[in-house]
């Protein structure tokens, strides 16, 4: 467990082992592919963020004065599609997961390195198609592609957007496939299931959803494209089709997709909380199994997006009841994280601040989910800003907080450099404040009845004040997101070299160099200890000082 002092001469690592554009574009090293993903998803994050900014600016005033109605409709559609399919779903799995899953289990690489590279290329092809779609006119169906609007009425580039997401979906499937096989087959000697970091459990659960859910949306998009091109009638009521069938198939994937975004984040938070509380996570087994439970139950609840869509009353009752079942394991996780802090030795470095932020915002996001699962209230708040606020609390307050927390936590390992701790804490604070200011008012807006996807609310000027708060918050949030990008880039050149284990953390990934060598470990690790053995680590090094001091 020795923390090696910073080396005067740079060791060979995955970053400097090869140079040149070919060594990156043809690499099969999971760490390099993770960086490729990092660059690509950051690009799409800022595109999606730009759309969000325009949406918020438009809503600053009740009248539709900044952009045209059609433009606004395209903005929220492409904001959703870019953020969901090209940022959130690949975010933690494809960047942090790609980088860390093999290292955490003591493997040299993922089971199928070339498929891993293929998955990035599929993502890039899908992304290029999406980008082309955006630049040549965009799409205005809403990210949900509801039929028959998308198949018969929209005159925008639905087919192109559908195919872009179809291709990106296969990238997601291949990542999930790779993780599952890797976790089953590539664990180092001694790395038993009960010794796996919770990050791995979370990614295992995520991969389950990716491989079992994504194909369904793929085939659904094929049907939409075919329907739009050939007017087959499968989703067209005029030809005997049922538009609700599309919604069933769409949400069969898209509800569990929320768990693709949030589960890896939960994995990050488990790692971070354990490290900065210097404790084994409370109720390891329950936290691990709750990930799997969430993944499985997540598939049973999709029609709670359809309570007012005209489905059978009895089906609605069944889906409502099942929806509560997924809340239980989520609650279990929150309780266990809280209990982990008990009698810990807690430090407040930036990753921990993000973890605190995650737990708080996820709690609010999860509890407002109860409102939406309960049939009576859902009828009122469905398709209003209440829903928008709820899922942004989960996806942005939850998934994105976790992603940023993880990026800070593992940045020293990824780049070999330390980020500026003071700036990082400031950014975490700005993100937290900006986020709440943006989205909390939207809960109130929703209950007051403001429908989502409205570009002009001049008949309801009473909604303006809350929208102004929201837009102000979004501006702050934007600054909060720009800051980390700036200081991460800065640290790559000017940051202090990171020691191998700056946090004195448990986990195999910290036992190799920072940045790690190409095959991760100089010697194949053999695991003889339990996960989160912080007592042993701290007994060996009683007074390690954390980075921020």
């Amino acid at each position: 467990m020795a923390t090696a002092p910073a080396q005067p001469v740079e060791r060979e690592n995955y970053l400097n082992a090869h140079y040149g554009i070919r060594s990156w574009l043809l690499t099969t090293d999971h760490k390099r592919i993770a960086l490729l993903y990092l660059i690509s998803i950051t690009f799409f994050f800022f595109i999606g963020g730009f759309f969000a900014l325009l949406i918020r600016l438009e809503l600053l005033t009740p009248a539709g004065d900044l952009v045209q109605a059609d433009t606004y409709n395209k903005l929220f559609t492409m904001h959703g599609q870019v953020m969901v399919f090209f940022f959130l779903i690949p975010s933690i799995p494809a960047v942090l997961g790609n980088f860390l899953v093999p290292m955490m289990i003591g493997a040299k690489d993922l089971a199928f390195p070339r498929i891993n590279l293929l998955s990035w290329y599929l993502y890039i092809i899908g992304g290029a198609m999406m980008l082309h779609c955006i630049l040549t006119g965009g799409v205005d169906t809403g990210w949900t592609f509801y039929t028959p609007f998308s198949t018969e009425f929209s005159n925008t580039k639905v087919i192109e957007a559908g195919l872009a997401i179809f291709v990106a979906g296969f990238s997601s499937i291949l990542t999930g496939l790779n993780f599952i096989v890797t976790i089953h087959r590539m664990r180092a000697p001694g790395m038993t299931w009960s010794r796996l970091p919770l990050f791995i459990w979370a990614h295992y659960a995520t991969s389950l959803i990716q491989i079992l859910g994504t194909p369904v949306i793929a085939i659904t998009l094929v049907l939409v494209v075919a329907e739009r091109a050939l007017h087959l009638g499968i989703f067209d009521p005029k030809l005997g089709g049922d538009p609700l069938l599309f919604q069933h198939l769409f949400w069969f994937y898209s509800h569990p997709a929320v768990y693709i975004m949030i589960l890896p984040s939960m994995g990050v938070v488990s790692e971070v909380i354990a490290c900065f509380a210097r404790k084994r996570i409370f109720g390891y087994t329950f936290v691990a199994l709750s990930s799997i439970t969430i993944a499985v139950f997540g598939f049973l609840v999709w029609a709670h997006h359809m309570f007012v869509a005209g489905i059978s009353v009895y089906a609605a009752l069944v889906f409502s009841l099942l929806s509560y079942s997924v809340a239980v394991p989520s609650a279990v996780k929150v309780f266990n994280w809280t209990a982990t802090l008990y009698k810990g030795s807690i430090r407040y470095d930036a990753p921990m601040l993000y973890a605190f932020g995650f737990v708080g915002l996820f709690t609010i996001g999860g509890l407002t989910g109860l409102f939406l699962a309960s049939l009576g209230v859902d009828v009122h708040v469905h398709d209003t800003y209440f829903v928008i606020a709820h899922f942004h609390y989960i996806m942005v307050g939850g998934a994105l907080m976790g992603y940023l927390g993880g990026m800070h936590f593992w940045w020293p390992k990824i780049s070999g450099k330390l980020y500026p701790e003071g700036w990082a804490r400031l950014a975490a604070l700005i993100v937290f404040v900006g986020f709440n200011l943006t989205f909390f008012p939207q809960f109130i807006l929703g209950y007051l009845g403001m429908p989502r996807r409205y570009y002009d609310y001049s008949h309801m000027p009473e909604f303006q004040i809350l929208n102004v708060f929201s837009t102000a918050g979004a501006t702050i949030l934007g600054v909060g997101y720009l800051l980390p990008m700036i200081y991460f880039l800065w640290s790559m050149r000017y940051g202090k070299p990171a020691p191998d284990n700056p946090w004195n953390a448990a986990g195999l990934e910290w036992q190799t160099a920072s940045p790690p060598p190409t095959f991760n470990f100089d010697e194949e690790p053999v695991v003889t200890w339990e996960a989160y053995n912080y007592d042993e680590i701290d007994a060996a090094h009683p007074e390690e000082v954390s980075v921020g001091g």
Partner: protein
Amino acid sequence: MRPTPRRCPLADSQIIVETASHAEAYNPALLHHFAEPQQQRDAASLGMWIFLATEVMFFGGLFCAYLIYRLAYFGDFAAASTSINAALGGANTAVLICSSLTVVLAIWAAQTSRRALMLLMLVLTMLFGCAFLGIKAKEYHDKFVEHHVPGASFSFEHEEIPGHPGQYANPHHAEIFFALYFIMTGLHALHMIVGLGVFTWLLWAAWKGRFTPDYYTPLEIGGLYWHFVDIVWIYLFPLLYLIDRHR
């Protein structure tokens, strides 16, 4: 390839680490990140099984649409289904079953070092695959001639519902059936074409002598894929060709 410590890849119960004294012989098929061939083989086979799981869900969405419309428009589906040549579909089922047999025989031949038999069986598999696609093309051609291909020229007027003399099938509902028929069998045929591509490569590798009783993983996982495509057809045949045939 530097000598790797031998190990059990999944030591759940015990830790087995031997030192490099038992260094394995140089094995060109062993990729760098695997400790030993068994691990690589297991990874490949699990990977293919999980890929097949995604394929099941991929077709699952179509089966879901099929199920719902078949229950809603049973008579129209029956009328449309009856217009398809079930004998051709049955023949295709038999062809695919035979090709599955030749696949297992090819693997068995590889396991038992019968190179000529392995090559023969691979060629036979591909011939069966081509035969399947040929029969499929004949079916598609028939449907095209009868204007049963969904789209602008689709026509299914005055087709009686089996068992309901005088009642004509709703052309719109029949079009949904044919849409599902073409998408399901079309995607299946696409899988067959991909399978033929995979088997072309397998044949080439077998010709080059890549496969030995110790290493035939590509054959095995290629075979898994082929059998899966067979299983999909086993369901498609009764569901698409044999609705209400008894009238």
